[in-house]
């Protein structure tokens, strides 16, 4: 198998972000919340303060490192929720067809008509800020593409010989959907899921920037940007480093998604195993 640059670079960036999140207590120099010290307020980046400090003297490097936890938790979990919803709806709609398909289609079109960030904002407004609300809001609003892909795949796979053979062998509907259909549509779903994770990381940043995400003082990249916006000219490092973290993570996920698409697409599938 030929390794694509997309896959390698994207995969490395994503793996790096995950490692940083997991190893945050060991990588961080200081406690991201408690170690405020006005003596070191607004220090620019240096050998001591790699990414500088904020107006309370907290180490930005340490806060960015801990911020990875929030961004990735939100990105991964909310996308998992989206994938489960999208696959459950799309797969069953494509497989059963009929009125259920109509219902799912209507729902999907509705979701596509409303920008998902606006929808998430509305949910956050009802639930209030916080990590759980963030997960729910982003997990419920970005499943329409997954749903479409799952539905279209189920529709085309349904007439495959092995799906019909399974019916003849006495498989029930659920067993057919899980053993015959789902494994055969995993490729595109993984691609969509990876790209979706990237957009969830961005959405988390946006919602936190608007003050709706994780409550300060605990750091998330979005809330750090939000706090930094007044000092963008006086202390640009406060914005640059969390911004860079978001950029690299999302870039990594998008490259990874593209790379996966290259190796998972149906044409190259048979050559792979």
């Amino acid at each position, binding site marked *: 198998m030929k390794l694509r640059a997309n896959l390698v670079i994207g995969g490395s960036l994503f793996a790096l972000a995950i490692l940083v999140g997991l190893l945050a207590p060991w990588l961080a120099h200081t406690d991201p919340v408690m170690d405020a010290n006005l003596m070191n307020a607004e220090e620019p980046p240096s050998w001591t303060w790699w990414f500088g400090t904020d107006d309370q003297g907290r180490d930005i490097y340490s806060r960015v490192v801990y911020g990875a936890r929030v961004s990735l938790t939100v990105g991964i979990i909310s996308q998992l929720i989206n994938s489960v919803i999208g696959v459950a709806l799309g797969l069953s709609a494509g497989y059963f067809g009929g009125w259920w398909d109509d219902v799912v289609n209507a729902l999907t079109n509705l979701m596509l008509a409303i920008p998902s960030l606006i929808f998430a904002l509305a949910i956050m407004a009802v639930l209030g800020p916080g990590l759980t609300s963030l997960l729910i809001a982003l997990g419920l609003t970005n499943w329409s593409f997954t749903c479409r892909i799952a539905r279209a795949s189920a529709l085309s796979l349904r007439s495959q*010989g*092995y799906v*019909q*053979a399974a019916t003849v*062998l*006495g498989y029930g509907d659920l067993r057919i959907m899980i053993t015959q259909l789902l494994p*055969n549509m995993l490729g595109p779903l993984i691609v969509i899921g990876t790209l979706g994770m990237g957009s969830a990381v961005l959405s988390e940043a946006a919602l936190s920037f608007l003050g709706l995400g994780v409550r300060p003082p605990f750091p998330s990249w979005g809330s750090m940007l939000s706090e930094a916006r007044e000092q963008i000219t006086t202390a640009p490092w406060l914005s640059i480093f969390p911004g860079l973290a978001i950029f690299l993570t999302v870039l990594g996920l998008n490259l990874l998604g593209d790379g996966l698409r290259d190796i998972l697409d149906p044409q190259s599938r048979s050559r792979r195993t």
Partner: protein
Amino acid sequence: MTGTPLLEVEDLKLDLDTGSGRVAAAEGVSFRIDRGETFGLVGESGCGKSITALALIGLLRHPLSIGGGVIRFEGREIQHLSAARQRDLRGNRIAMIFQEPMTALNPVSPVGRQIAEMFVLHKGKSWREADRLAVEALANVRVPAPERRVKDYPHQLSGGMRQRVMIAIALACGPDLLIADEPTTALDVTVQAEIIELMRNLCAERGTAILMISHDLGLVANVCRRVAVMYAGRIVEERGSADIFRAPLHPYTQGLVASLPRLGSRAALGRARLQEIAGVVPAITHFPDGCRFNPRCAQATEICRTAAPDVDLLEAGGLVRCHHHA
């Protein structure tokens, strides 16, 4: 074995919803298969063999439906069973293998898994036990090194090997009836013979009855004790294979037999041509009045064009449906 036949089909009618009304895609279909018996259903493509098979296992779907008649399995009517009860029969008591060994296996699942799934699904086995039984099942269909082959994916196997796997899956639960719909049409001639031989031996060992469906009378007559010949949705002749082969009674069957390539010319009978019967099977929506074979039949007379012939039960056993049969 006497007593209740394994499968009994009586006056089965299959409707096709054309959008502008219902037409009978098959009608008056009756036959019975005893335990362990081999029975063949033969006819040109489109005559209704596959839809008959689907009806037997409860899988006719819109636009097709059962329009009348009775299907009994072990004396019990099965055409009105609940979906769940029919599922219990399928794959467990009545199994089926198809024409396409290339596409009938799930491409992303190892073949052993697909065999094992049958034991889990129908016999309530644990996966561990089922995986072990799968190796045995592969060995039974004479796949070499079965303990390694179970891990293979379908695309790693040849067409013949895949059809062996299909047979292993179909026979996994020890069904009473195996329906084989054109099981070897997609395979090389040499592989064909092997697969048929394997299927016949395995079923004979286990007392599994076979309903073999094919357009190839020669193949079916070879495997089956009795054969029913179908034309345009009706069974036109049903007799012992040897009898049908030696002395076909229905003009259509005579045409089929004459068109079989074999040594010993039948020139004496004036049918030396190795050809299909002239003309084509009529479309369902345009079945001719009277005998459906009349536009292609050399022996047709006036009555053939107006009245559909009834079934004649033969003294020697079997039946034929023709006004002027030999």
